[in-house]
């Protein structure tokens, strides 16, 4: 797809922070209701990132009133106002699908501590 990279460049966002699976995010989503628009925050941890280039998406999971909610966003979607990384997670998988089967204490993700050691 290299041949279309220059075309895709126009759709790419430059304000996407670095984040990976296990990180907790606040995704600020622009919602247009009629002629009013407001920002809704979707907070959860990243289940994984899929695809590459302009078509890359990421899935955020949260548990709301006991029900697991997953939402997949195109990474470069213009409906995203901004993405905030709340905390980094310490995980060993690229896709955290195993988290779907867990609840309660088992569904915790250890936070990655940065001790300023080797980079």
């Amino acid at each position: 797809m290299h041949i279309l990279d220059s075309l895709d460049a126009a759709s790419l966002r430059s304000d996407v922070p670095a984040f990976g699976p296990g990180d907790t995010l606040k995704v600020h989503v622009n919602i247009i209701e009629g002629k009013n628009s407001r920002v809704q925050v979707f907070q959860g941890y990243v289940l994984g990132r899929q695809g590459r280039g302009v078509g890359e998406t990421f899935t955020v999971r949260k548990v709301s009133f006991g029900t697991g909610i997953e939402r997949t966003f195109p990474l470069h979607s213009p409906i995203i106002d901004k993405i905030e990384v709340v905390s980094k997670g310490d995980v060993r998988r690229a896709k955290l699908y195993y988290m779907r089967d867990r609840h309660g204490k088992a569904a915790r993700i250890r936070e990655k501590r940065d001790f300023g050691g080797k980079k």
Partner: protein
Amino acid sequence: MTATRNVKGLLGTKLGMTQVWDENNNLIPVTVVQADSNVVTQLRNADRDGYTAVQIGYGQIDPRKVTKPLAGHFEAAGVTPRRHLVELRTADAAEYAAGQELSVELFEAGQKVDVVGTSKGKGFAGVMKRHNFAGVSASHGAHKNHRKPGSIGGASTPGRVFRGQKMAGRMGAERVTTQNLTIHAIDAEKNLLLIKGAVPGARGRVVLVRTAVKGA
């Protein structure tokens, strides 16, 4: 038969598919077609040819590879030789001039077009892939015939297989037209057409983009 419709068309190369967002933030899948170096090579008129049409040339070719008759044909139009030629029957052929360059601005965003291409070759394909047959059961005693067609006709009456019976064979690599696609956007600088949806053929193959037959 004289053409009664005004048909616009361009030849181009399918570069591939990607996605863009429109003004309402909807994700649109688009096929990118590069339609540069299109040129009018000949005009057909009702007096001499019995019909009106424009002949369009597209694509680079090594001038040494062009046969003498074709080289003369291109010289008559005053253009450098092109690899592909296509004729479009249109009522307004007289408005074109031989040697005229055609750009993607012939089309406008939102217009309906048909795209003609050569589909990807699938080789020798079985009936399930080629004709969407259902095949045979995976279980219930089926033995080594899961993808076979089953019966292909009667017995001693008619005593032969009817002509046109759908069977396995070569699939794909044939002319396919996809109708009523929408032009999402035009990049006049890079001579790109962004067409919503898929168009026939593999990346890098030549396609003809023309005004929709049924749209309007």
